[in-house]
C-alpha cells in the first residue's frame, strides 16, 4: 500500500517525501474544489521536474461550465505532456476530452460520494479510467468487495476531515452579506446539537466538512486498497508529520503502538468503515 498525501502547501511536498510519502495530490488553480494547495500549470511543471522520484496526481474535480471548457481542454493537453501520474476528475467533461483527444494521462474517478460499487468501477475501467477514490461513506467490507471485483487501482482516505457536501453557492459570503459583517477567513466552525463541522469557501463554491478527523489507521492492514490518502486540510503541520510517520510504521511493521499513538493525536473516529448507512428504500413486493 502506498501513502498519498494531500498537502496544505508546496513546501511540505519535499518534507513529507523525506518522511516516506509515496505520492501527492494537489489541485489545479481554478479547476479543483476542496484543496488547500492549488497550483498553476507552470508550478505543477516545476514541482514535477524537481521531484522525479515521486508520483503526482492533479485534482480537476470541480463542476465545469461551458465557458471553462476551452481552458479545461488546454489544461488537460498540457498535463498530458507532463509526467503526471493521474488526474482526478468529477465532471465527465474531463473524461470526454481525454477520450476525444486520445490523451495518455491516466484518470482517477473521483466523484466523491458516488464511488460505491464495483459495477460502476468496471464501467469506468472499460472507458480507460485506471484509478478511483472510493467514497468515505461505505464500509470496509464494501471497499474490499469492490477491490475483489474490479481491476481498478483503488484509493481510500484513511486520515483527514471528511467532506460532507459541496455547493456552487457562496454560503459563507452570503451569510456575511446578509448580516452586514466582514468575512475574515475562508474557514469557519459550525455547531449543531453539540457536534462540530466546518465550512470552507473557495471560488468554485462552499464545502462543509465533518468536524472529526477520520482515523482509519487501525484498519490499514485490512484495507485492500492500493493508495491510502492522508489529507492535511485543517490539521496542524507538526501533528500531520507524525501521522505520516506512524502510518508508515503500521504499514511496514504492523506496529500496534503506532495505532495507539495516532488515536492520542486525532481520536478514534472511524467514519463509516464499520457503520453501514441504515436508511434504504423498502423492498419491492
Amino acid at each position, binding site marked *: 500500500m502506498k501513502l498519498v498525501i494531500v498537502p496544505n502547501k508546496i513546501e511540505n511536498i519535499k518534507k513529507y517525501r523525506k518522511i516516506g510519502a509515496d505520492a501527492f495530490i494537489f489541485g489545479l488553480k481554478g479547476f479543483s474544489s476542496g484543496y488547500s494547495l492549488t497550483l498553476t500549470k507552470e508550478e505543477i511543471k516545476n514541482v514535477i521536474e524537481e521531484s522525479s522520484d515521486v508520483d503526482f496526481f492533479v485534482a480537476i474535480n470541480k*463542476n*465545469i*461550465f*461551458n465557458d471553462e*471548457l476551452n481552458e*479545461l481542454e488546454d489544461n488537460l493537453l498540457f498535463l498530458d505532456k507532463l509526467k503526471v501520474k493521474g488526474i482526478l476528475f468529477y*465532471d*465527465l*467533461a474531463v*473524461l*470526454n476530452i481525454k*477520450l476525444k483527444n486520445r490523451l495518455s494521462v491516466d484518470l482517477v474517478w473521483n466523484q*466523491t*460520494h*458516488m464511488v*460505491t*460499487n*464495483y*459495477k*460502476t468501477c*468496471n*464501467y469506468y475501467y472499460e472507458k480507460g479510467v485506471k484509478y478511483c477514490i472510493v467514497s*468515505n*461513506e*461505505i464500509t470496509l467490507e*464494501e471497499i474490499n*468487495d*469492490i477491490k475483489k471485483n474490479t481491476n481498478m487501482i483503488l484509493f481510500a482516505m484513511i486520515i483527514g476531515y*471528511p467532506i*460532507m*457536501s*459541496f*455547493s*456552487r*453557492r*457562496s*454560503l459563507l*459570503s*452570503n*451569510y456575511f452579506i*446578509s*448580516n452586514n459583517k466582514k468575512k475574515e477567513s475562508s474557514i469557519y*466552525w*459550525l*455547531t*449543531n446539537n453539540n457536534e462540530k*463541522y466546518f465550512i470552507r469557501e473557495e471560488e468554485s463554491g462552499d464545502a*462543509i466538512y*465533518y468536524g472529526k478527523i477520520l482515523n482509519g489507521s487501525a484498519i490499514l492492514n485490512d484495507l485492500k486498497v492500493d493508495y491510502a490518502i492522508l489529507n492535511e486540510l485543517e490539521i496542524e503541520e507538526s501533528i500531520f508529520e507524525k501521522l505520516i510517520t506512524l502510518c508508515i510504521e503500521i504499514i511496514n511493521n504492523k506496529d500496534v503502538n503506532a495505532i495507539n499513538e495516532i488515536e492520542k493525536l486525532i481520536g478514534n473516529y472511524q467514519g*463509516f468503515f464499520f*457503520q453501514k*448507512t*441504515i*436508511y*434504504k*428504500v*423498502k*423492498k*419491492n*413486493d
Partner: protein
Amino acid sequence: MIKKVELLSPAGDLERLKIALLYGADAIYIGGQEYSLRANANNFSLEEIKEATSFAHKLDKKVYLTLNIVFHNEDLYGVYEFIKKVVDAKIDAFIVSDPFLVKYIKDNFDVEVHLSTQASTTNLEAIKFWKEENVDRVVLAREVSIKEIKEIIDKIDIDLEVFIHGAMCTFYSGRCCLSNYFTNRDSNRGGCAQICRFAFDMDNYKEKFTMATKDLNMAEYLDKLIASGVKSLKIEGRMRSPYYLATVISSYRKLIDSYYNGTLNKDIIMKEEKILSRVANRETSTHYYMKKADYTDQYYTGRQEVSNQDYLGLILDYDQSNKLVTLTQRNYFKENDEVEIFTPSGNTYTFKIDKVYDENMNSIEVARHPEQIIKLNVDFPIEKNSMMRIKVK
C-alpha cells in the same frame, strides 16, 4: 403542428399521478419501491406501475421511473430483474444516474433512458459523453443558466429537461452526504433528511448560520426557457399533495398553452403567479437561471415554511338534477365564504357558498372535519376531481 414542450409532474402515488395527468401534465415521474431517491414517498409497487402506465397511455401521456440511487454493491442484486419487470409494465423511460445502469438498460431493452439531475450535468462536453452512451435525455443540473442551456442546444441534438418549480437543493445533486453524517441515513439512497434546512451556531457570531434555499419558480421566465429549446419542464416534489400538484400543473399548463397560442402576456403570468403563491410554503426565486444564485436566494433565520389552508375540498360528484355538488372536505369553510372551483380541464368558477349540508342533507353551516362528505348547492355542472379553494384575490 408544433410539438409543445413537455410538462413533467412528480407523483408519489396513483392518486397523485391521476390528478396530475388530469390537470394537464404530459408525463409523470414516479419512484418504485426500490432504487429511488424519495424513500419517504409512498412509491409504486409493480402492480401500481402497470396501472399508472395503462392510465397514462390511454390519455396518450407518459410515465417515467426514477432509478437514481447511488448503488452500493448490495443494491446490485435484483436490479436487473426489477428493470425487466418495469419494462414489462410498459414504462416509457428510466431516470438513471449511474452509468453502468445506463449502459445496461440501453444494451438490453428498447426503452428510453433519461440521465438524472443527480449526475449534475452542467456543460456541453459532459452531454457529448452521455450522447455517446445513447442517453435519450439529460436532466440538467439546477446550477445552469438559460444562456448555458441555449449554448448546449445550439451545438448538440439531444433532449434536455430542466426543473422549473419547487424545492431546491443547497448543494450540487450527488455532492451532498449531510444526512449520512447527521442521521446515518444515506442521502444518495433515498434518505435525505434535509439537513440543509437546519440552523447552526457559527464561531462567536450571534446570528445563526443557515443555508436553506428559497424554492424555484420560473413562471415569469417560462417563455425564455421554452424558447431556449428545452424539451421538458419538470416540477419538483414527489411528496407534494394532490392539491399542490393540481394547482401547480394547472397554472403551468395555462402558461405553456398561452405561449404556444400567442396569448401569453404579463396579466396571465401575474394571475398564475398569484395562484402559485397560494400553494407555496416558501418564498421563491429563479436561482441560477438568470444569474448565479446569491444571498437573495437563501434564508437566514432557520426554517421558513408556512402551512397553507387554501384547499377546501375535492369534488367527488355533481348531481345535475338537484344541482348539488358532493365533495370531501380538506380545510375549514362555512356558509357565505367566497370560494372558487378549478377543474382538470382548466376552468375556474367563483361563487359564494349559500348552504353547507352533510352527507344526509342536514344543514350544518360549517364544514370543519377533514374527509367529511359535504354537499353544496352549485348552479353549474362541475367535473369530478375538480378542487375547491379559497378565492384567489
